[in-house]
Each structure stands twice: as structure tokens, then as C-alpha cells.
């Protein structure tokens, strides 16, 4: 895919902090797909998103939206993207109506009817203040704003964190509907079960390095999980990508080809199991 076709193309993104470095992160988003951005807390998800959006100044690398450079064309780009963060706490005592009135004035493409539809669809009342909204409703309000200026790319930073399972499910359904409408979504989270329900692609970041960028099915199919009730067999230990203790014994993550070659009694792991095993191995 040419960089110009991609809603977001990131090359060699680097950001240095005294105790953390985002190391040359590169990826491209597929138009009309949901890309899940996973990694444990502190792995660099938020730093990556903040660097992409220009909230923090990158030390190196290029960020292009539809081929446009974020540093030179920020205004044009921001007309086409929407950023939704779980920690969104803007003007908590102002009515939504006031925030919307200001926000809409910055977007020539603002669609009042789409905004009203989004309010109805999400059950939002304009007279309420953000302080009076639950976390899930705050996310929905931020989504309503993004959809009303016809954002084509939605960047969501941990939108489902802190939400109950029903609210998370509801948001996941909304994301799927938005994907059906042709929106591209980049969705960072450490709640991998949400991604299994909606993501097409996966980006996996560990200690500031992007270690996987592929379709989610390909990612989960690349591994197998061996469940052992006693000790881990030596053969499995030699192939192990990561081990974890469980109530019954141990689980070992192994590459699919290795597991097949060794004819081990394995099963396909879930995204969370892959992430946990790989992180455990990284820690050792």
C-alpha cells in the first residue's frame, strides 16, 4: 500500500525520555479497518499516539496522514481525524452544548444533523456537563464530536478502560458500525478481549519497540499454547516463548510451526494469553 493511500503512515517514530525510549516505531494503517494497538501499561502506546498527534514532540521519524505531513499540514489533517481519549476531562463544569458550540466553529465540514443523530444514538443530553457523565458516556460524547466533523480516521486511546463489560461491548459494537461506514480506527488498549471482537489488524508494542504489525488472525494463529498439569516437558521448554503459572500447573507459548513439528497437544491461544506470555518472557 502506498503511503499516500494510508490514513496514517508512521516511519521511524522515536521519542526519548530519561527513563523510556520509543524506538523507531513504524506502521501503516489500512483504510476502513480497525487496528488494535496493544501493549502493557507503560509500553509506549500513549507516547506513540501523543507523538503522532503532536502533543509531544518527536525526536525523530515521520508521521503522515493521507500523505500529508503532520508538522506542515496539521490544520488540514485535524479536519479529517478525531481523537478520543479515556482520560478526556475537558471543561467538566461546562454544559456539552457550550463545548459543542465552540468545537463546531473550528470545523467547516460540521454536520449538525449528524451531531443530533449521534446524540440520539448514544443517548446524550446536551444540557449535562461532562462531570455528570459516566466514563462510557464521555467517550460517546467525544465520538459524537468526531463523527459530526466527519472524521475519517478515529484515534482512540484506551477508550474502554474503566468501563463495565456491558458498556465495553456497547462501544465495541459502535466501533464495528463505524468500520462498516468506512471509518478507519486506531484503537489502543490493554483489554485485548475487546480487540478480539472487533480488530482486523494488530500492533503490539513492548518496551517502546513495535514487535508485531499484522492481521489479528495471523497474529493469534502464529502461536500455540501448551497446558501442563505438572512440570513442563523438556521438549516444550526448549521451544518456549514464554511460560506462565496457572492454578493447575503451567502454560507455555510456542510458535505454531514448532508445536506442529513436535506434535505437542496444544491449542490456539487468545490474544491476551499471547500478550501475557510474551511480556513475561521479556521481563526475564
Amino acid at each position, binding site marked *: 500500500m502506498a503511503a499516500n493511500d494510508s490514513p496514517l503512515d508512521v516511519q521511524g517514530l522515536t521519542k526519548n525520555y530519561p527513563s523510556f525510549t520509543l524506538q523507531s516505531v513504524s506502521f501503516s494503517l489500512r483504510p476502513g479497518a480497525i487496528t488494535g494497538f496493544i501493549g502493557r501499561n507503560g509500553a509506549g502506546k*500513549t507516547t506513540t499516539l*501523543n507523538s503522532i*498527534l*503532536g*502533543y*509531544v*514532540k518527536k525526536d525523530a521519524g515521520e508521521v503522515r496522514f493521507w500523505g500529508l505531513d503532520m508538522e506542515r499540514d*496539521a*490544520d*488540514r489533517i*485535524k*479536519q479529517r481525524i478525531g*481523537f478520543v*481519549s479515556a*482520560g*478526556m*476531562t*475537558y*471543561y*467538566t463544569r*461546562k454544559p456539552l452544548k*457550550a*463545548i459543542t*458550540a*465552540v*468545537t463546531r*466553529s*473550528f*470545523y467547516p465540514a460540521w454536520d449538525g444533523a449528524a451531531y443530533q443523530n449521534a446524540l440520539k444514538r448514544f443517548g446524550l443530553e446536551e444540557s449535562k456537563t461532562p462531570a455528570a457523565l459516566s466514563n462510557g458516556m464521555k467517550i460517546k460524547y467525544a465520538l459524537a464530536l468526531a463523527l459530526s466533523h466527519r472524521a475519517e480516521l478515529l484515534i482512540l486511546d484506551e477508550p474502554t478502560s474503566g468501563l463495565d463489560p456491558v458498556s465495553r461491548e456497547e462501544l465495541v459494537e459502535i466501533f464495528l458500525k463505524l468500520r462498516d461506514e468506512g471509518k478507519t480506527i486506531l484503537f489502543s488498549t490493554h483489554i485485548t478481549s475487546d480487540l478480539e471482537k472487533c480488530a482486523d489488524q494488530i500492533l503490539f508494542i513492548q518496551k517502546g519497540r513495535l514487535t508485531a504489525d499484522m492481521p489479528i488472525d495471523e497474529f493469534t494463529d502464529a502461536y500455540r499454547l501448551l497446558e501442563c498439569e505438572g512440570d513442563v516437558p523438556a521438549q516444550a521448554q526448549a521451544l518456549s516463548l514464554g511460560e506462565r503459572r496457572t492454578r493447575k500447573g503451567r502454560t507455555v507459548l510456542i510458535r505454531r510451526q514448532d508445536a506442529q513439528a513436535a506434535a505437542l497437544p496444544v491449542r490456539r491461544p487468545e490474544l491476551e494469553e499471547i500478550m501475557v506470555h510474551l511480556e513475561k518472557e521479556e521481563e526475564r
Partner: protein
Amino acid sequence: MKLLKKELRLCLHPTAYLMPLLSALILVPNYPYTVSCFYVTLSIFFICLSARENHDAAYTLSLPVARKDAVKGRVLLSCCVETAQMLLLAVFLFLKSKIGYEQNAAGMDANLALLGEAFLVYGLFHLLFFPRLYRDLNQVGKAFAVASCAVFLYIVLSVVFTYAVPFVRDTLDTPDPEHQTEKLLFTAACAVFYAAATVLSVRVSIKRFEQMDLQL
């Protein structure tokens, strides 16, 4: 204009309505009238403090707004509040002249040169407050402490000058319309200082804000 509208609708702190009204303090006999300008700088501090608490910078930068325009919007709002105070000051100067002029023992008399002093106070405040604020938005209190110390020092000196500096004592600190031309020139020079200090403050603030990593 869009940014000014945003500042007025979302960022304006209630004290920004209240503090300019303290221009009425010039009706009080023997009071350092430039202190009324300090109250306005206090309201600007509250605007910036409440902006920090409401994550205003993150919201503003999520809009199609350049960092430099975000800085200009905030300084423009401050200039609006200051202008409102100076207009009210002019109204109360006129009222005081009708009520009956009296010498002020605690600094500049209520006359045209007082407007010049207001320009000086605000220029000095801009020069020290905004560049420090836009180095670290979380340190709004420190920025205000430094700027208000300088403002207070100026207020004290301005009172001393009305006794110790012959030009201030004999020409500026006199009832209107005495030495009107000199007072007008003084006020114009102070307005030029205010404009220059504001432009410089904005330039330095933009430079610093452009380099800042926002903590969301």
C-alpha cells in the same frame, strides 16, 4: 476570532468580570491606584489556572489549531480583560474629576498618567508571566508568583517616584488638565511599551510552547 470565542466561552473565569470593576478603587482617597491593575492580573492567573485544571491545552490542540494560535488566543483574552479595566478606569477617572479632585498621598493621582502606569503594569506582567507559563503549563503558580513580585515592586517604586523623582512628582502626579501634553506623551510611550512587551512575550511564549511536551 474563533479562538477568542473559545476563550470567552470556555476559559473566562468569573473573576475576569469582577476584577476590572475594582477600577472603582480610584474613588477611594489615598490609595495606590495601580493595585487595581494587580487584581486584573490575578484574574488572568485564575483563567490560566482553571484552563490547566480543565485540560484546555489538550482540548485546544485537538482542534485544527496551531500551537502558536493557542498562545495568541490566551494573550488576546488577557488583553481584552485589561482593556476592559482600562476603559473602566477612564470612566472612573472622569467620575472622580466630576466629584472633586484630591491629591493622592499613596502614589499617582487619579489622572491621565495613571492610564500610562496601567499600561506599564500590564506590559511588565505579560513579559514575565506568559513566557514562564508556556515553558511549563503546570507551573502556573510559579509564573504568577514571579510576575506579581515584579508588579508589586513596580507599584512600590511608582509610589516612591511620586515623591523622589522630580518629573513624576511635578509633572505627572498633578491634577488634570495640568501638563496634559507630557501626560499624554507618557501614556503613549507606556502604551508603546505595552504593545512591544506583549509582542515579545507572545514570541517567546510561542517558541517555548512549540517545544513543550503536553502531559495529557
